[in-house]
């Protein structure tokens, strides 16, 4: 394995483009090093990017945010402005692993690992986040939902690397929330995850995005949940319709963490609960 420490993103892309064997980018390393140790993936070329300009920065991009690819979960949780505007995205990332993992793990890594159960991904999809990708053809920006294509696989092409996650401007009276179900209180992988992002006019929901994790091969953006919520003041009828839409969207597997039946049911329950949290947060915003 060759360890590279390029001096620019351009050089990092060039190394990846020229790599003939297995190539991995290294940011937090909390998945890459586990795969290395387990002999699941032994890269021929490992390209460390976290020292490159902008990779460790959380910065304003217009009225939105740019979160560099090597920003850790701990750094996100410590950013009060980011947490106030995007509490759902920050709480989702904060659920990943222990204090130690939070000191290294990144949003971009959680996305590129392409686990269907990744906690931060439904929250990013509900937030309508995009990623900036650097590659041999230059830079492009794509929605987060287009990155994972199947468990463990992404749509990134040879030589491409995500350099940042972009969160849009936070509208007035809007907020997000993320909830997951795990059998324990800490340190586990989502059985179901749900991200909800709402915008209100007065007390009426005017815009909604809803996303589910761990109930299909990739993260789901569920328009039917949003449709059930929009126009409502989150009464019981809207909540029941949203829960039904969530359960109907599920296409889960049976495994040791949960059965198909359980995941399908819990997706509805979490959708209601996450919607209530996002709604109360949005009502608290001016």
């Amino acid at each position, binding site marked *: *394995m*060759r*360890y590279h*420490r390029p001096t620019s993103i351009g050089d990092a892309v060039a190394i990846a483009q020229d790599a003939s064997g297995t190539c991995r980018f*290294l940011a937090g*390393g*909390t998945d890459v*090093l*586990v795969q*290395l*140790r*387990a002999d699941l993936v032994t890269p021929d070329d*490992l390209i*460390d990017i976290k020292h490159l300009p902008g990779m460790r920065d959380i910065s304003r991009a217009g009225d939105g945010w740019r979160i560099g690819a090597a920003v*850790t979960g*701990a750094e996100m949780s410590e950013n009060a402005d980011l947490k106030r505007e995007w509490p759902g995205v920050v709480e989702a990332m904060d659920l990943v*692993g*222990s*204090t*130690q*993992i939070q*000191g*290294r793990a990144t949003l971009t890594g959680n996305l590129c690992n392409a686990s269907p159960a990744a906690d931060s991904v439904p929250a990013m999809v509900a937030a309508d986040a995009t990623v900036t990708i650097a590659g041999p053809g230059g830079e492009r920006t794509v929605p987060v939902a287009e990155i994972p294509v199947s468990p463990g696989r992404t749509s990134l092409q040879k030589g491409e690397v995500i350099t940042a996650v972009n969160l849009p401007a936070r509208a007035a009276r809007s907020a997000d929330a993320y909830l997951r179900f795990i059998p324990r209180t*800490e*340190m586990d992988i989502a059985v179901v995850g749900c991200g909800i992002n709402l915008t209100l006019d007065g007390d009426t929901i005017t815009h909604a995005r809803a996303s589910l994790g761990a109930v299909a091969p990739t993260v789901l953006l569920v328009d039917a949940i949003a449709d059930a919520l929009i126009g409502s003041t989150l009464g019981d009828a809207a909540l029941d319709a949203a829960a039904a839409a969530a359960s109907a969207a599920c296409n889960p597997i049976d495994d040791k963490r949960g059965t198909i039946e359980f995941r399908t049911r819990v997706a509805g329950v979490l959708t209601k609960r996450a919607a209530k949290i996002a709604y109360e947060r949005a009502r608290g915003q001016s």
Partner: protein
Amino acid sequence: MSMIHVSTTVNGDEVDFVCDPRETLLDVLRDRLALTGAKEGCGTGDCGACSVMVDDRLVCSCLMLGAEAEGKSIATVEGLAKGEDLHPLQEKFIEHAALQCGICTPGILVATKALLDKNPDPTETEVRYWLAGNLCRCTGYDKIIRAVMDTAADLRKAS
């Protein structure tokens, strides 16, 4: 296999070492720098026995390459005591019998010091969540939590 030369700081001392690109920071600490306080439990970031500080951030040294230590400041359990004088946390762990086999103890000491440096007055719940990534198969955790709460109270009185 080409070896990598790394310059770093460990417990305040400037250190140079040469390592294979696949070696973790934990491998380097134990096998090249003879700092065997950090332990390998799982090797996959689940147990926390290898916890160290890197640039004042608590991390699992098994989930970081030795090569990534270039230019960093690393603190291990060996830096806790001042000569023969144990750190108050170490004193309290002995007093409360907060360890049995001792494998998890260095990681828990490093993790707990990181918490108390950041938050000198944590609740028991905060301590338990902070230490959720440090597994102990002997004590049942309760004595560890008592030792941490007692140390925190003592340090607050002293400051």
